[in-house]
């Protein structure tokens, strides 16, 4: 990764009539990284990617590619390209013609074009005879690879992805996520990937930018976002979490030892992941402890999840390995807890 960002976004704003999709956002994309931009639908991530590739014009702000300002350069003159959500493969062209399309536009000789297309087919592990196949003869996964090959044939400075895997079934998606990660490492290109699935982003990317309502909530490596979310929005976006208001110091939460030192009297929300909690034996001490009654249990394969309602009528989720489960079903009184290091304090205004 170079020191200078390959792409710099500066106070980028986009408004549609009376709706503001992006509120003066800043973002640096590092050279060679795999950046995922994650957010719920309507958060502005699609608008952002369309601005970055040049399908939309910004209302305000600037986009720099290395030291060239590109926000007014039309999409067909930018050295970047995108893999569309629909893939946008040309149905009237064969696999080979699709891959060669950007080369044909640059007037690359036919023989050279074909050689490059075959190379790319091999890179994406598609058999050579797919060169002459029609697009409608390809399966969903194969089409993904053709779309990728076409984008790589363009040889972009940055390759953008607009949720290309969202239409696939779960297993194929998992396979392609790993392939994409591997492709990133092999090609060394900069990838910017839009998705609504944080799970997908975690598997593939070096850094994740979480978007909400036209702004970035947090930009950090996946591990950091997982462990230290900057807001309750990010914490909840990642899946089930237990959030406790520490300032109110509700009777539900018993803090002792290190936890008491760290969190007592603080302002904010304490995040504890369901899998960090464990069932406490009677009289067992824990730095953070909660008492309540089991209200429901759900089997998750090797793990088991409990919904526990506290005396203060707060619902807490606990996830443990099957062998560490509770004897007795709903209605059983129970104590749960964890160490201070498993907790994260979100100091939010």
């Amino acid at each position, binding site marked *: 990764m170079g020191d200078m960002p390959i792409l710099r976004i500066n106070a980028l704003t986009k408004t549609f009539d009376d709706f503001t999709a992006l509120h003066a956002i800043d973002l640096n994309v590092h050279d060679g990284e795999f950046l995922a931009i994650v957010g719920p639908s309507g958060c502005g991530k699609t608008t952002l990617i369309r601005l970055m590739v040049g399908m939309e014009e910004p209302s305000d702000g600037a986009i720099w590619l290395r030291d060239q300002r590109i926000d007014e350069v039309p999409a067909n003159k930018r050295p970047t390209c995108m893999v569309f959500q629909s893939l946008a493969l040309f149905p009237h062209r064969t696999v080979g013609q699709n891959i060669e*399309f950007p080369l044909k536009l640059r007037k690359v000789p036919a023989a050279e074009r074909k050689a490059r297309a075959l190379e790319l087919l091999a890179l994406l592990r598609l058999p050579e005879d797919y060169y002459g196949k029609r697009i409608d003869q390809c399966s969903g996964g194969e089409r993904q690879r053709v779309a990728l090959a076409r984008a790589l044939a*363009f040889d972009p400075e940055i390759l953008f992805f607009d949720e290309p895997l969202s239409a696939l079934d779960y297993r194929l998606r998992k396979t392609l996520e790993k392939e994409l990660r591997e492709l990133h490492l092999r090609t060394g290109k900069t990838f910017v990937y839009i998705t609504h699935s944080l799970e997908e982003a975690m598997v593939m990317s070096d850094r994740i930018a979480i978007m909400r309502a036209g702004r970035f909530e947090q930009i950090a490596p996946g591990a950091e976002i997982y462990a230290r979310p900057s807001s309750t929005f990010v914490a909840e976006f990642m899946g089930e979490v237990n959030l406790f208001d520490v300032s109110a110091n509700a009777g539900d939460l018993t803090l002792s030892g290190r936890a008491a030192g760290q969190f007592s009297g603080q302002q904010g929300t304490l995040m504890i992941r369901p899998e960090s909690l464990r069932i406490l034996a009677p009289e067992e001490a824990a730095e953070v402890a909660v008492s309540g009654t089991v209200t429901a249990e759900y089997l998750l394969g090797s793990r088991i999840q409990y919904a526990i309602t506290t005396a203060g009528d707060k619902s807490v989720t606990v996830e443990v390995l099957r062998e560490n489960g509770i004897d007795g079903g709903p209605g059983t009184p129970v104590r749960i807890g964890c160490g201070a290091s498993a907790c994260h304090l979100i100091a939010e205004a």
Partner: protein
Amino acid sequence: MRGRERRLGLLYSLPVSAFLALSFLAPILLVAAFSVMPPKVFSLANMPDFSAYGEFLTQGYWRSVAWSLGMALAATLILFVLCWPLAFAMAKVFRGFTLVLTIGVVMTLFVSENIRLFGWVLTLMKGGLIEGYIRHWTGVGYDGLLYNVPIIIFGLVYVYLPFMLFPLAQGISMVPDDARQAAYDLGATRWQILREIELPLASPGIVVGSLLCFVLSAGAIAESKLLGGQAVIVIADEVETAFTYGQNWPLGAALAMVLIAIVGGIAIWGIAKADLDAMIGRRR
């Protein structure tokens, strides 16, 4: 369920297909039969002698065919160029205005074409709307624009514009926006997008629109009679003359068969190529 669909499909198709068999296919067969009869007979109880087709070749009737086809081709090409930008805008750019245009254009179809052509006569003739006012304001007039070949082509373009516009717009709406944007993103210019993406993907609409215009223009008669005067005689006019003034049914039938063979051949070829389900039902 499948068996039921098969039975119902056949059953429901019967009213219209039986009607067309009796009053479309049968009359055409009759024309075909008459076309091989000897001259000026009014019954099929004669020995076929194919003399009418000989007359077609020797009496210069092929010239009328050539005029009809040539003018139809010219009108079709002009219509394609004229309608493409508007059809594109209707399919991809306009929102509410597309409906206004659609209603506005469809409404003209409901006015008898001879009233509309008569309106052009009133507009273009010497002392008509245009010449009359130009003379009134400038004092200089001209001899009127009617009674020549270009004005017949103009009439064809005018009458058959909706038959090019709507199929084209339908065809263009079948071009996915993503495909156009992807080509743009991959570096294609506006012109390259037109050639590489839009024209090929809109081709079903282009084929249907061009065929309709060509076929209808080739068989047209009112444009040449009302606007063209006697500048050229089109084939449909010859057919009519042979049947009515000439009282020579076999000749009229043979001339009609030539037109039917050319036009029907092109129409059948085109219809066979078009995927009707995708065109009309927008299923892909």
